[in-house]
C-alpha cells in the first residue's frame, strides 16, 4: 500500500528516492507513526519531503491517497449571491488576476458559466479541470490552482476541527510557482555570476608566495594577485506602461535585485515592443532616449540580454512598419528584435504573465517564435530556466 503512495508522490513531482522511503519504513518499524493518522502524516512528511515548497504537493498527494470521499460538497450552496462572490474576489485577487478575468470575458461571463456548471453537476468532484470541487484547476471550487478560481464551500461555516491537517493546505503559497521577493531573486540571479581575477593585484597569494619562497631558498618572496570579481555583464530591457502597469512592482523588484547583484548592469526601457529608440528613465520622456542602434554599438556581444515584458499587444506592432501605437516606426518591431538578438547571442525574455496564459495571446506566441522559444515566466522557477539559457 505504501509503495503505491511512494509512486504517487513521485508522480506528483516530489523528488523522493528509495532510501528515503526505506527510512520511512524503518521509522514505522520503530513504532514512530503508530495509532494516529496525523502522527503518521507528520512522520511521512519529515522523512520524505525535503523542501517546504513541496509541502503543498505532498498534502495533495496524501489527501488523494489516504482519504475516502469526504463530503464537503454539501456545503456548496447552490444559491450564490453574486455580489458576495464579487466582494470576495475583490479581496482575494491581485490586480494581475483581475486583469486575467477581464481577459476571459469579465465577471458576468464567469458567473454565468459557474451557474451553468452548478446546474449540470450532480455529485462531489475532486481534481480534474472542469467540474466544481476541490483541488482542481477549474475556475470553480475551493483550494484550486486557477487564479480566477472562485472559492466555494470554504467559508467559516466549515467546521474547522473536522478539516484534516493535510487538507488545509497551509503551505500552498510556498510552492515554487508563486511570485518571488527581491531576496529570492538575488539568489536566483546569483547563479549567473562568473568570477574572474582581473585588474590590480591586491590580494595576498599564499600558494604562490610559498612556492616562490621555496624556490628562492627560503628568502621571503611575496606574491599578490587580483581580487576575484563578478564579470558577468547584463543588458536589461524592461517594458513600461500600458499593459505592464500591473507588473510594475514585480519589475521594480527584479531591477533592484539585478542592480545589487551585477556590477555591469545596463538598463533601458521600451514600450510594448522594441523599435529604434530606448529610454534610460522609465518616465520615458525628456532627453533620456537613446537610439537602439547606438545601444547595439555600445555594448560588446558578451553582454547577456534580458528582456522583460508581457509581449501583449496587437501583432501588427511586431510585424509591420508603422505598427507602433505611439509613433510612426519606419521598420517593424521584429526587425529590431532580430538585430538585438543577433548582437547579443545570449538572451532571454521574462514574461510576468503566467505561462498558461501565453497561448491565449497571438503576440506572445509570435514573440516566442522570434525568440526561438526563450521566453520564461517571471517566477523563481522561470528565472532559473532563463539563467540556464543565458549561461
Amino acid at each position, binding site marked *: 500500500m505504501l509503495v503505491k503512495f511512494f509512486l504517487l508522490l513521485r508522480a506528483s513531482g516530489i*523528488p523522493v*528516492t528509495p*532510501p*528515503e522511503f526505506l*527510512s520511512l519504513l*524503518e*521509522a514505522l518499524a*520503530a513504532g*514512530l507513526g503508530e495509532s494516529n493518522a*496525523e*502522527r503518521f502524516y*507528520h*512522520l511521512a*512528511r*519529515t*522523512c520524505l*519531503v*525535503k*523542501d*517546504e515548497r513541496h*509541502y503543498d504537493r505532498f498534502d495533495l498527494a496524501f489527501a488523494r491517497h489516504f482519504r475516502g470521499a469526504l463530503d464537503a460538497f454539501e456545503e456548496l450552496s447552490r444559491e450564490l449571491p453574486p455580489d458576495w462572490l464579487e466582494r470576495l474576489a475583490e479581496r482575494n485577487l491581485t490586480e494581475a488576476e483581475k486583469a486575467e478575468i477581464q481577459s476571459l470575458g469579465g465577471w458576468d461571463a464567469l458567473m454565468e458559466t459557474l451557474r451553468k456548471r452548478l446546474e449540470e453537476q450532480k455529485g462531489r468532484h475532486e481534481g480534474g479541470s472542469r467540474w466544481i470541487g476541490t483541488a482542481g484547476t477549474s475556475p470553480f471550487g475551493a483550494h484550486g490552482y486557477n487564479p480566477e478560481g472562485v472559492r466555494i464551500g470554504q467559508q467559516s461555516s466549515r467546521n474547522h476541527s473536522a478539516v484534516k491537517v493535510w487538507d488545509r493546505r*497551509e*503551505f500552498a503559497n*510556498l510552492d515554487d510557482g508563486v511570485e518571488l*521577493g*527581491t*531576496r529570492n531573486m538575488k*539568489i536566483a540571479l546569483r547563479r549567473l555570476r562568473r568570477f574572474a581575477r582581473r585588474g590590480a593585484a591586491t590580494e595576498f597569494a599564499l600558494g604562490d608566495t610559498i612556492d616562490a619562497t621555496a624556490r628562492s631558498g627560503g628568502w621571503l618572496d611575496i606574491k599578490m594577485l587580483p581580487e576575484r570579481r563578478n564579470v558577468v555583464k547584463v543588458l536589461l530591457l524592461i517594458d513600461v506602461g500600458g499593459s505592464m502597469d500591473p507588473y510594475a*512592482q514585480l519589475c521594480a523588484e527584479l531591477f533592484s535585485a539585478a542592480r545589487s547583484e551585477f556590477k555591469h548592469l545596463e538598463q533601458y526601457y521600451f514600450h510594448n515592443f522594441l523599435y529604434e529608440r530606448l529610454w534610460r528613465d522609465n518616465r520615458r520622456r525628456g532627453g533620456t532616449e537613446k537610439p537602439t542602434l547606438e545601444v547595439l554599438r555600445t555594448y560588446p556581444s558578451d553582454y547577456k540580454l534580458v528582456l522583460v515584458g508581457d509581449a501583449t499587444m496587437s501583432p501588427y506592432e511586431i510585424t509591420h512598419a508603422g505598427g507602433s501605437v505611439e509613433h510612426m516606426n519606419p521598420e517593424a518591431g521584429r526587425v529590431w528584435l532580430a538585430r538585438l538578438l543577433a548582437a547579443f547571442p545570449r538572451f532571454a525574455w521574462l514574461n510576468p504573465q503566467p505561462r498558461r496564459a501565453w497561448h491565449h495571446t497571438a503576440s506572445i506566441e509570435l514573440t516566442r517564435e522570434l525568440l526561438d522559444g526563450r521566453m520564461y515566466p517571471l517566477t523563481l522557477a522561470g528565472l532559473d530556466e532563463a539563467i540556464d539559457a543565458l549561461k
Partner: protein
Amino acid sequence: MTAEFRGSASYIATAELMAAVKAAAVLSRPLLIKGEPGTGKTLLAAEVARSLSMPLYEWHIKSTTRAQQGLYEYDAVSRLRDSQLGDPRVKDIHNYILKGTLWEAFEAERQPVVLIDEIDKADIEFPNDLLRELDRMEFSVYETREIVRARHRPLIVITSNNEKELPDAFLRRCFFHYIRFPDEATMTSIVNVHFPNLKRGLLREALTTFFKIRETPGLKKRPSTSELLDWLKLLVAEDIDPEALRSEGGKLIAPLYGALLKNEQDVHLFEQLLFLNRRNAR
C-alpha cells in the same frame, strides 16, 4: 534514547516538531530545520540539549566557513614558526592539529546534540563535503593517518534560511522539518512562557495588532515571534495601556512599532496605510 523532547519551560514545540525531533533521534539522521527568521530554528538545538540533558556543540556557519574546519585544522604556520624558534613541540604533529566542533562532539562522553547553524551561508559545495562525515559519523585525519569515529552518534540539528539550495544527496540523508509561523493559540502559549505576568487584555490586543501587521500586504520583512517578544518587552517596560493598542474605527495604532518593522520601506508602507485608514474612518 529513552527520553523524549516535549518542548521546555521556555520553548513551545508543536506536535509536528516533536515528531520530527523524535524521528531524527530514533533513526539517528540529521534533522534539517527551515522556517521564517525568528521562529526559533537555532534555539531548537539548545532546548533539545537542555531538556534531554545532552551536551551541546554549536557550529555557526559563515560565508567563509569550510567543511574541513568543523573536523580539524592543521596549523602549518605555527609549526613553521616554532621550527624556526627551535621549540621542541614541533616534533609532534598532534600539537598543531586543532580539533573542530564535529571532532569534539564525536569524542563526547554522552550522546551530544550538534547544531550546524545556517548551513546555507556557506559555499554551495559545503554540504557535499560533509556527506560522509554525517552519514558514517567518522572521518580520517590525513596528517596523522588516524580515523576519528563518533563514540555516540550525535543528534545533529541543521538550520537553513533558504539562501541556497542544498544538494539533493545531502537532503536525502536528512530529515526535514519546516517550522511554520505559529498560529494565534500557539503564539499565546509562547508569550505566556516568556511573560507569565502579562496583563490578559494587553496580550490579546497586542496579538491582534501583531497579526494584523503581519497581514499587511506588501511588507518586505514580516515581523516574527522573536520580534513580537521584543515588542512586548517594550510595551511592558513602557506600561502601555491595552486601550492604546485597540483599533478604533478601522484605525491601526501600534506604539513602538519600530520593534516589529525593521525596514524603512515597511515603516513607510505602514504609515501610509495608517494614513489611509484614518482618512477612510472620517
